[in-house]
């Protein structure tokens, strides 16, 4: 039989026991609970960077514009396409004497023999004699040219545009085949001097006289653009259908300038 005192003592002892057990258990598992929490200052000082929020970054204060790409080279202002001459021609070209070299005469002969000049009846089919300048003056290599005499031809704006179109139309397929060597090559414009014979073939090798649009990043491609020009006129030649009477007039197509660019 347990007495009331014993029960009370047992209860107190049990609680005290439990308290002791708890104290010892906690003490064993984590002594740090008895210590003050770790001072945050120590963590920061030993580890330089704790997270994304940190000391002011050492960032360049250069304005953004100053970091423009070196590749953004200024593009040369594109030369405006040559205007067909808007001015009315005020003075007609003097009739040009025809002291042509033999080569021209020889080449003109097949043209003349090919041209079906309607009822013109120009009977100059001599096979080696001097060309009949008077009869040829104003004569074109176009069929159905029935005029026997013309006033001296002049290169009007419209005529220039037509000739340019005719040339472009014929060389475009060859131009389109030219392969771009690399990025930026399409900015290069080759300025070319062409000299043609009356039959539209090249009278002299294609002459590259200059370039536009060249910068540090595309300079390495200039030679290939030049190669392309030469390839174009080697492949798409001769140029046909150009008006004979505008061959060797002022601004005629005997010698002219061509600006070429790879397709951008």
């Amino acid at each position, binding site marked *: 039989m347990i007495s009331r005192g014993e029960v009370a*003592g047992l209860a107190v*002892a*049990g609680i*005290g*026991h439990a308290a002791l057990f708890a104290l*010892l258990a906690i003490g064993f598992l984590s002594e740090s609970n008895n210590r003050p929490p770790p001072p945050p200052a120590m*963590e920061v000082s*030993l580890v330089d960077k704790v997270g994304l929020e940190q000391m002011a970054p050492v960032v360049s204060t250069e304005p953004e514009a100053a970091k423009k790409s070196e590749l953004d080279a200024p593009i040369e202002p594109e030369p405006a396409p040559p205007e067909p001459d808007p001015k009315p021609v005020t003075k007609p070209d003097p009739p040009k004497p025809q002291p042509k070299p033999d080569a021209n005469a020889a080449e003109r002969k097949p043209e003349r023999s090919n041209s079906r000049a309607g009822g013109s009846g120009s009977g100059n089919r001599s096979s080696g004699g001097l060309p009949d300048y008077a009869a040829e003056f104003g004569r074109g290599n176009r069929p159905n040219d029935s005029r026997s005499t013309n006033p001296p031809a002049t290169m009007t704006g419209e005529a220039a545009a037509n000739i340019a179109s005719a040339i472009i139309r014929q060389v475009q397929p060859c131009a389109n085949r030219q392969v771009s060597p690399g990025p930026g090559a399409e900015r290069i414009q080759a300025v070319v001097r062409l000299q043609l014979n009356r039959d539209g073939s090249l009278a002299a090798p294609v002459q590259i006289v200059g370039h536009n649009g060249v910068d540090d990043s595309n300079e390495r491609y200039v030679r290939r653009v030049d190669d392309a020009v030469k390839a174009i006129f080697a492949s798409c030649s001769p140029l046909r259908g150009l008006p004979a009477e505008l061959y060797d007039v002022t601004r005629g197509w005997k010698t002219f300038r061509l600006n070429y660019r790879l397709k951008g």
Partner: protein
Amino acid sequence: MARTKSGFLLAAALIALAGCTKTPPPDVPGPGPDNGTVVDNGGGDTIRPGSAEDFKRSVMSDTVHFAYDQYDLDAQARAILDTQAQWLLRYPSVRVTIEGHCDERGTREYNLALGDRRANAAKNYLAARGVAPGRITTISYGKERPLALSSDEASWAQNRRAVTIVIS
């Protein structure tokens, strides 16, 4: 003052009284011995105190983890390192290496540096807990030695770690 004193005496007496009860006191595991006595875990294996195996069994973990691209220690990491520090303070002659690792979502060289930061973060924390830094070497493995092999967040989280390895 007198009341606390008598209260204390009463508590002491009651605690002493506890020894007189009929029920035996529960088995309270005490702190491990400092000398070389063998702890028998009942399974028959013996682990030398101060050994690597002892370390692994004694501490909360040998590994702490980090957030992506970070090397700060969160509360869990600190708790783990606290247990490591305790153990290391108990065995002052033991040396450790802390390996720092990264997940594969970082570039190779940066990860070598980040792994080094993580290893040093753990080392510095242990040093702050009183472990002599001369006992701790660090090495970074960058992303070269992942633990988990998949390319997903779960694996990457496991790989961002600093591992403490007993070396003597």
